[in-house]
Structures are given as structure tokens and as C-alpha cells.
């Protein structure tokens, strides 16, 4: 049974977040061969950017890295990073896929991740670090974060002087004892056949600069929730110290539903994770900044998951003030930022001073999901999430293509995990059909 007949079948999983990781591991443990494509240099997706996860406050790295390593070591999973599908043609029941693989400029077999190259790079400390949401600087040859999988350095082609302009003394090459750096590496196109495809491309976040009234991008001390995750994280720009512009903020203001439940931003939907990640942020602040003043603005607190209501209650009891009402604007005051909000419970118009305002920005489909869906002729909904039905939650409009995780609509980690397993189950049924 199982192993014998499935061994030859080969599934493509697009996206290496927790959704794709779950689907890939389940498929592989049922005997299928899996190729996982990750567009970035490491798998892990958004979850690996998080400091802790609600409602248990488990360290995100601690729960996810072992899964990432399992993917990398699994004998039936082939992992390709810096890779994405470029062309897809239906071929019988399966698909012929051409995969674009960008050069890493580092030989994965030779690199020991010693980091010598990064230290020698002339661009060291001059390029924005995407993993830390541009809150810190890195070199042109780098590793995105300490627990990256694969545990290999890469050259950022745009930032590297040699790759982009053809001239640099290439100190990195000198520094590398194992001679792993290879600037002759070219982009590759790999053609392959797959019996089915699981899409797990995840999500983006609402661009808060669109909400001018909150001054994101212009006012100092206004940041987004995902940026705040990085500030809290040990592997983040401050090494986990709660320090912003050299100071520890004392007055924190969190605003929920930024870019969700908001027709003006084109998103009527609820993003499903921002109430809880805000409660999590408030709890982390309470723990690390003992004398902090913490406010949260909300419309409804959607603490719907297992132990979420209890977590919300304990956040409140820990001394976080929840204000029902979404602020109209944020301005620079004399002694900090001024948040103007109508408290709907008291009917009062209040002005609250804050050192740090965190915008709980909502979820958006990834921009390149549209491209991916066009290649596969997969339908999307009015917002651009991949369309499915509630009876077969991973089935898309194209036979043999399944979806899981945030790509089909907002989900927290446990829901993403369950949807990854469900996608694997449908996929197994599909490839088992004669």
C-alpha cells in the first residue's frame, strides 16, 4: 500500500512558510516525492519573523526551526530556494513546470556559514535588511537570519557592487576559506513534470503609508506590527531590547484593524490575526517594560480561537487599556505623539500621548500570487485571495492544484497547519486516481 504505489508520484509545493512546510512533510511521510520552491533565500515564511506566538507565547523559532530542518533533511523532499515557477502547462493529469532559479553566487556544498565573507564585504552595514523590515543593515553577502534553512550565505545581486556594476575588489572571495563564492553562477531554468501542485505562497501586509492620517513613514515612533515583532525578537535589529531610536518607550499605543474592515482601503474583510497579535504585543511589553502604559484601540476584539479569549482577558487584567474606537489621526505633540480617538464607550473625545504607536496592519494577498494564479488559471476572490469552497477548503478551480495557508484567506498558525494537512489529503487523493 502507500509507499509502494506513491513513490513515483511527484508533487510541487510552492512556498516554504508553515503552510507549505506542513503540506510537504505530510506528503513526504505518506511516501510521495516533493519539490518545494521558496522564492526567498530561506524557508520559514512569516512565522519565522515572529518573536513569540499567541496564545502560548511560545518562541516562534523554537517551534518552527525543527520543522524547517526536517524539510531540509527529509530524504523525499527536494528544497529549492530563490526559486519560483515561471511557466506552467497542463500535461495530462499533471503539469509541466519551468522553474526559475536565481543565482546565490555561493556554492551551497562548500559554504560553511562561517560568516567571514560578510565581515569582509565592502557594503557591510550599508544595505537594508529585508528580514528585519529594513530596520537594520547588512552586507551584500549575508545570511537572512541565524537559523536560516538552508544554512548558507548568499549574494544580493542588486546590492553587490560586483554583480550590479562589475567592479569591486571582491574582498569576500579572499575571505572565504572554502572558496565557496562563485560570481559565474547564472540564473537557471529547470523544466520538470509534477503530478499535482500545492500552492502556499502566503501573504503580504497592508501598506500603512496609504493611511496618511497615521503618519507611518513620516512620524518617528509609528511602526507596524510586523516591525514590532522584529524589535521584540533576539535575532532582530536591537537584539531583542525594546529600544527605539535609542530609548525605551514607556507609553505604547496599539491600533487594530489598520487596513482591514475598512472599505476605504478596499478590504472589507477581517484579517483574523491582528487582534491576537496585538494582545500578544501588549503582553510582551507588559513583561519587558515594567512601568509601561499600554493602550489598544479596537472595534471588536476577535479572540475566537482556543484559549484566545482567556489570553485577551489576561492581557486586560495585566493592565492594558482597551479603548473601543479607532483613532482619527496621529500628530506630533510636544511630549510625544498625540493620538486622537473617540472612546465609544464613554463618548468622550480623548487625546492620548504615546512614545510608540504600533499599527496592526491587515493581511493582503501577495502581489505575485496573481501571476501564479494566471499561470495556473486558478480563480481568485474579489480581494485576490485564492478562491476555494468551504466544503473542500483546499480545492481550487483548477484540477490538481490545491492551496493552503494564508493564500486562500487570513488564517493563524493552527488553522494554517490544519489547512496544510487538508491540502495534502486532497492532493494524495488526486494523484492516487487512475
Amino acid at each position, binding site marked *: *500500500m*502507500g*509507499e509502494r504505489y506513491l513513490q513515483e508520484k511527484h508533487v510541487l509545493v510552492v512556498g516554504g512558510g*508553515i503552510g507549505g512546510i506542513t503540506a510537504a512533510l*505530510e506528503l513526504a*511521510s*505518506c*511516501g510521495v516525492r516533493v519539490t518545494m520552491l521558496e522564492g526567498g533565500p530561506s524557508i520559514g515564511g512569516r512565522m519565522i519573523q515572529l518573536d513569540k*506566538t499567541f*496564545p*502560548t507565547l511560545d*518562541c516562534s*523559532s*523554537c*517551534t*518552527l*526551526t*525543527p520543522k524547517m*530542518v526536517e524539510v*531540509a533533511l527529509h530524504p523525499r523532499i527536494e528544497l529549492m530556494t530563490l526559486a519560483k515557477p515561471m511557466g506552467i502547462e497542463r500535461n495530462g493529469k499533471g503539469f509541466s513546470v519551468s522553474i526559475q532559479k536565481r543565482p546565490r553566487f555561493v556554492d551551497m556544498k562548500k559554504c560553511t556559514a562561517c560568516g567571514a565573507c560578510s565581515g569582509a564585504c565592502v557594503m557591510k552595514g550599508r544595505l537594508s535588511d529585508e528580514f528585519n523590515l529594513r530596520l537594520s543593515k547588512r552586507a551584500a553577502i549575508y545570511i537572512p537570519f*541565524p*537559523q*536560516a534553512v538552508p*544554512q548558507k550565505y548568499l549574494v544580493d545581486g542588486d546590492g553587490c557592487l560586483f554583480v550590479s556594476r562589475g567592479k569591486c575588489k571582491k574582498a569576500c572571495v579572499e575571505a572565504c576559506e572554502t572558496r565557496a563564492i562563485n560570481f559565474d553562477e547564472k540564473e537557471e531554468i529547470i523544466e520538470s513534470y509534477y503530478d499535482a501542485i500545492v500552492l502556499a505562497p502566503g501573504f503580504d501586509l497592508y501598506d500603512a503609508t496609504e493611511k496618511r492620517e497615521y503618519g507611518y513613514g513620516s512620524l518617528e515612533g509609528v511602526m507596524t506590527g510586523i516591525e514590532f515583532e522584529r524589535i521584540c*525578537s*533576539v*535575532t532582530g535589529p536591537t537584539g*531583542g531590547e525594546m529600544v527605539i531610536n535609542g530609548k525605551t518607550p514607556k507609553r505604547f499605543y496599539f491600533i487594530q484593524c489598520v487596513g482591514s*474592515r475598512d472599505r476605504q482601503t478596499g478590504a*472589507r*474583510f*477581517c484579517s*483574523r490575526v491582528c487582534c491576537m497579535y496585538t494582545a500578544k504585543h501588549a503582553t510582551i511589553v507588559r513583561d519587558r517594560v515594567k512601568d509601561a502604559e499600554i493602550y489598544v484601540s479596537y472595534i*471588536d476584539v*476577535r*479572540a*475566537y480561537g*482556543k*484559549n*484566545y*479569549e*482567556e489570553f485577551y482577558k489576561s492581557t486586560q487584567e495585566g493592565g492594558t487599556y482597551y479603548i*473601543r474606537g479607532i483613532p482619527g489621526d496621529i500628530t506630533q505633540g510636544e511630549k510625544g505623539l498625540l493620538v486622537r480617538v473617540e472612546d465609544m*464607550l464613554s463618548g468622550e473625545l480623548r487625546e492620548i500621548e504615546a512614545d510608540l504607536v504600533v499599527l496592526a496592519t491587515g493581511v493582503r494577498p501577495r502581489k505575485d500570487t496573481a501571476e501564479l494564479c494566471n499561470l495556473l488559471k486558478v480563480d481568485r476572490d474579489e480581494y485576490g485571495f485564492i478562491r476555494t469552497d*468551504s*466544503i*473542500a*477548503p483546499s480545492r481550487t478551480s483548477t484540477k490538481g492544484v490545491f492551496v493552503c495557508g494564508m493564500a*486562500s484567506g487570513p488564517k493563524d*498558525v*493552527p488553522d494554517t*497547519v*490544519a*489547512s496544510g*494537512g*487538508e491540502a495534502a*489529503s*486532497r492532493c*494524495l487523493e488526486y494523484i*492516487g486516481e487512475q
Partner: protein
Amino acid sequence: MKIGIFLCHCGHNIKHTVDVARVKEYFQKFLNVAVAEDYPFLCSEPGQELIRSRTEAEGLDRVIIAACAPTLHQDMFKDLVKKGGLNPFLLRRVSVREHCSWVGDDIGKNTDKAIRLIKAGVYGSSHYIPLEEKQVDVTQSAMVIGGGVSGLSAALFLSNQGMHVYLVEKEAELGGHVRKLRNVWPSGKDGSELIDEMVETLRDRENVEIFTSTRMVSFGGSFGNYEATLETPAGESTVKAGGVIVAIGFAPFDPISKPELGYGKDKRIVTTLELENGLDELGLPANPRVAVLHCVGSRDEQIGKPYCSRVCCINALRAGQTVKEKFEHSYVESFYMDVRAHPKGGEEFYEDTQEKGVLFTRGNVGEIIPTPAGVLVRGEDTLFGELLEREFDLAVLSIGMSPPKDNQYIASLLKITLDKDKFFLEAHPKLRPYDTALKGIFIAGTCSGPKDMEESINHGRASAVKLFGLLNLGYAFVEPFVAMVDPKRCSGCRACEQACVAKAIKFDDGERIVRVEEAACMGCGLCNSTCPSSAIGLKGHADSSINDEVGAILEAI
């Protein structure tokens, strides 16, 4: 003996309150310690490589990993030391996170404690013996308990993959609660049609045996070879299954336990579940006034239900829309704390409900009083801080989900755990949301906490994939921690024989001592604690090991 100690910072988690450098220094000078290293994340790829390569290079005899609790990443770390050439049962985990760094803030004291704990690990593990995992044949069949939408989903997948499936349902009909729903949100489909389709497919499959009106009365065996006795209408029946999926669903909250709401005393007070049958029977006037109450039986600490039931806001919206669709000029008012219209399409549905004219009042309803003219809803408007009192022709209670009735029963038969709200407890709330602590036993759907239909389907299928992954090879490995008798010490008193629930201990009449049947032993250790002569113990867990650990903790440092 060559001991290797690996201390993890766990990012902030350990390093913040334990002086890792001091711990490392302490053990570098310790007897027999060949390696003492610290690392930011031992579970990361380079951290793993560190452990593997040092184990191999130094030819270590014991590896001590001082990091998170042993329940986390155990298989991974075992695998690593094995790859480094050491028997994986010579690995010792020391919890310096859960048992130390997370407990206190005092760095000095925490560091001392970490040293003591690691020392206990060093002393204790010196008594370890190399063991081998046993390969056992597993039965390629599954028992699914509960024939609601999650159980049916699991059964559909497993049977499609060729596994033999025993589907056990206590009611006469399959389908659970979805069968009772007329207009399942958001698909708008009829629940019984959805169920019939699933059931027909199952009935057509030869490898599916459906037992309705059936109860499980006993359960035993171990992973890969579980055995259950079923009481079916045709008599008792025994089934053997490699694994089990528990999908016994939920019990709708019964508002009788909130007498102030007047439920059961008046026909004009109904639940959302009763409303599924439509409005026709309710004898409403032409332009009825209808109140909808959210959170009935949820978010209510007074009745011991602090949790949110996740689906009842949407059900309340459905109720409002049902009334509005039938009576355009009705007056419908919903009383809520937060409108948790979170599922996909939920927020739009909420807006749509508001546009249809349903009013939303943020309030706490204290009581419902039936009067001849109507039902009086009394409480507090929490937005305006005023008392409210209004008369309605109908009050609809959006009831929450309570744990399934048989939760305790099934939990004690299967030896699985319930959570604080008496739903089943998952192995890990994030990454193992449908696993239990027992291998091959899963919990799917609402029996582990409130979920809507889509989420219950996801759970049913996702847990089925996991079970299939465990059984599809036809064999599996099990841990070798079984009981072992020291024939020199055994006096033949047979106390352990009484204690053993697995009936794994047999008395040898000739030698007048007891023997252990390893295949039956589940490694629980009950015998160990009953033996007056310390003659029976678990392999790999010697009494001397525990004694030395205690000694280490008490030693001066």
C-alpha cells in the same frame, strides 16, 4: 566515560536569566566532561550540526542537552546523537528553560539551579544503558469514533487510500450536528444533503465498516495494534486498528443552566439550533420584534465557560438574516459584546446583516422575563452605560459549544487528556493541533474546541493524513522502555501482577518469580512503584539513576 554537555540560549529565553558562560565554565572543569558548549539555538541547523559533529569527533559516551523541556524536539535530538554514532538512549535532556530560566528572574540563583539540574543529568545518565527501538508490525486500519463532519472527512480520506476503516457512531444516523442545519453558512447548502453525499461514498466502499447505534466499551493495545470492543445492535464486536481518530464533536450549550434567560419556560425563547427548523412553527405576528443574544453559554466565567465558541456570532447573524428575509418589516436587535465575524466572508456578512436592518446593541442581557404581551429583555447597554429593557415577540439565544457528553468516558478509555474546559487537549496548540500525547491517537473537529464546518473538515482530513503517514509502511518503531525483572531480587510476592493494567506480568510457577511479556507492557512503571524489593523496574530508568540525580541536586556547587 566521555560526557558532552550542550547548553542552549534559546535566544532570549534561557540566556536572559541564566549566566550561560558561568555554567559552561563550571562544566568544562568537571570530571569526565569532554565537551561543554553553549549555542544560541541548538535546534537550528548549525546547532544540530554542532551536536552531531562533536559527538562523533570526541566519541562521546553520553550527551547532555540542556535546553527546553524534553517533550520538545526529542526525536530530532535523538536522531542527531545517533548520527554522531551514539546510542540515542544515552542522550539526556535537561530542562533549563521550563524548569529554570522561565521560573525566576534572579540570574545568580537561576545559574546555580541550572548547574544543579545539569549535574543531576550527568549523574543520572551515568546509569543509562544502550537500548534499541523495537520494530513492530502495524495494522493498516483505523477506527474513527464519531460520524460527524470531521469523522466522515477522516474516514473518506483513509478509505480512499486503501485503509480499512471502522466508523463508530453512537446515534442511529451519521452526520452529527451538520445534518440538522438547513442552510449551512457560507455555502448556503442543506446540511443533510452535504452529509448524505459523504455517507453514500463511504457506503460504496468495501473497506469501510460503519457501526451506528454503537458504543465503544473497552479499549486496549498499543500504537499500531489497538483493540476495541464495540457494543453494536447486533451484539459485541471486536475491532483491531493501527490508530484511532476521535471525532466525537460537541454538545450544544443547554440554556437551562442559565435559568434567568427563561429558556424552556416559554415557547418564545428559542436557541439558534431550534431556529434551523424555520420560523413557521413559532406563530410570530406580522412584523415581529426579535431579540438575538450572542454569547449564550460562552465568555461567561460564572458558569465556568470562559472561552469563546467561535461560531455563534455568525449563527446570530444568520438568525437575524433569517428573520429579516421572511419579515422585511420586522424589528431585529442583536445584543453582543464583540461581533466576532471572523471567518472568511464573515465581516461582509455582518455588514450585509446591518444593511438589512438588524440593529446591534453592545450590551449584557441579565434576564428574559416572559409576559403575556411578549418577552422582556433586561440588561445593560454597555456602550451608553444605561439600563435597557425592551419587549420582543421572540428571543433567539445564540448558544455556544460545550464539550461532548462522552468526553470523560472516551478520555478514560483511551487514556487521553482533557483541557481546562473539558474538551480534548492537543499535543501542541500551534503545530500539533490534532495530535494527542499518544502515538496514533488523534482528536479531530470540535471535540478539541469550537470550530465551524470548514475547520472541522480540515481537522478530520489533516489528522487522517498524519495517521496514514504513520501506518502506511506496515511497520513502525516503538520505544523500548518496558519493565524488566531482576530474578535475584524478586521474592515472588506478585504485587506487581496486581498493579499491571496491561496484564503484562505473568507468574512463573516453576521459578516462583514474575516475568514480563514485553509485547504487552506499555512502560507505565506502575509495577516499579509497587515492588517492595525493587526487583522490577523499567529498562533505562534504574532506581539508582534517580537516587543519584537527587544526590546531585543536593550536592554543594
